[in-house]
């Protein structure tokens, strides 16, 4: 899923300052799972904002809504009227949803309430971590299913740097696992350690962001 985190309240409050009608729009998919921008988080943000406005003597009308996905246009139909009503939409989707909302409702100001972080997993309740950077050319088959691009701080393809110690990465030895220790351990348990002895050539990054803005077209399903 796409993992995001709500911006600090002060930042959000500052961004909607001066607007009279605010729609807080949640998203029911990834950001609901990572507890950043689902229905519940919309309610909390709305209440906090109302309270802050009350204390500051600010008149602001706040409405709440959450749609299934803000990355698919069809789901916006149900909130069309609310969006048109609002001076500003405070989207609690990832950056993708914020942008699509703006594309669909020209002239409407859409502001982000979240910081979009990464593609990741739920490690346990309240903890999410990165697994993929979307490089466009998956290399997991060579590394026992552990991605060196996403999980090594330097995206090294040929083994750990000198900063790997006791399974941790030098960038944050308390909280960050060394991706290469994970790869090594996995390959060892799979009995495939010898495969790590093969030199991996320099990666072709053109399928990643380095190749420019990406788009996928599937002619066979285009209507």
């Amino acid at each position, binding site marked *: 899923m796409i993992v995001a985190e709500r911006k600090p309240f002060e930042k959000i409050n500052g961004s909607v300052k001066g607007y009279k009608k605010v729609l807080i729009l949640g998203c029911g998919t990834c950001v609901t799972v990572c507890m950043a921008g689902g229905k519940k988080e919309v309610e909390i943000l709305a209440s906090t904002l109302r309270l802050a406005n009350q204390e500051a003597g600010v008149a602001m009308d706040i409405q709440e809504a959450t749609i299934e996905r803000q990355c698919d246009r069809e789901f916006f139909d149900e909130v069309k009227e609310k969006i048109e009503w609002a001076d500003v939409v405070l989207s609690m989707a990832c950056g993708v949803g914020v942008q699509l909302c703006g594309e669909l409702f020209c002239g409407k100001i859409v502001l982000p309430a979240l910081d979009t972080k990464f593609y990741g997993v739920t490690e346990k309740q309240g903890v999410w971590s990165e697994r993929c950077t979307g490089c466009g050319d998956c290399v997991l088959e060579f590394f026992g299913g552990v991605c060196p691009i996403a999980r090594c701080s*330097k*995206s*090294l393809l040929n083994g750990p*740097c*000198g900063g790997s110690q006791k399974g941790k990465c030098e*960038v944050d030895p308390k909280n960050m696992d060394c991706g290469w220790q994970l790869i090594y351990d996995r390959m060892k348990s799979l009995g495939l350690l010898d495969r790590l002895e093969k030199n991996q050539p*320099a990666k072709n990054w053109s399928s990643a962001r380095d190749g420019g803005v990406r788009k996928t077209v599937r002619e066979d399903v285009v209507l």
Partner: protein
Amino acid sequence: MSELKAGSRLEKIFAKGAFAVTAELGPPKCADGRVITTKAGFLKGTVDAVNITDNQTAIVRMSSIAAGVLAMREGLEPVIQITCRDRNRIAIQSDVLGAAALGIRNILCLTGDHQKFGNHPASRNVFDMDSIQLIDMLRCMRDEKKFQCGDEIKNSKNEPAVGPKLFIGGAENPFADPFEFRVIRLAKKVAAGVDFVQTQCVYDMERFEEWMKQVRNRGLHEKVSIMAGVTPLKSVGMAKYMRDSVAGLVVPDYYIDRLSKAADKAAEGIAICVEQIRRLREIPGVAGVHIMAIEWEQKIPEIVRLAGLVPRPAV
């Protein structure tokens, strides 16, 4: 003597079978080239070549190529460090051509310290390649006269291809984890075409000897010249800092005790370093020593002299 790849002094020393001595010279954090002149003065005639670091610990310093040229003017042979942190393959190859044109013959390939540790933690890193791919790219530029993309290194169709003459170095850290992978990593560097490696500074001699055993078991010492790194400890504080705060470094308490008890800490630090060099020299497969005297370059002549490594052989 077999045919030389670059003809650098360092390469000739290894070819001759002599025990090589290199040191580290950190370029200044300013535009004043006199810092290099001063440090070079300490090292001239004492070492075979001097490593010019490439913005080590991600702190902005004078470019390693520029500082290397300044060192050459002082009669020192530079080993230019190139990291993968700040430049992509286009910029690195361009710098390698420039360095070669300026007379630089030794290039040491590194991954590079993460920018988190430096003075620009908000910067973006590159890591287009890793150090092993960098070694392979340089070998290809030298031996096949080709750029990484496969194009020939030539200025125009009708001119001959001219590759840079390089003696290619790498680094190894036998003290990082996973330990069993460390020798594999060296093997990968050898396969990529590395000519010499310098190790992280050795304090834990037992672990280093164990690593060297693994190196010899794979016959790697016959394919690459291995230089053991040493760093003299200036004080107890420095020893503790190295032990506790530098990732991938092991400083046994034994040295800290010795320094604590010594009246003259600096002299004891140097004595320890000299002992280490003498011991490292006895290890089969160790072809030289690399002295990283951090902001203590003026002590290198004394260390080298006490270790019995001067005069340096003529080549």
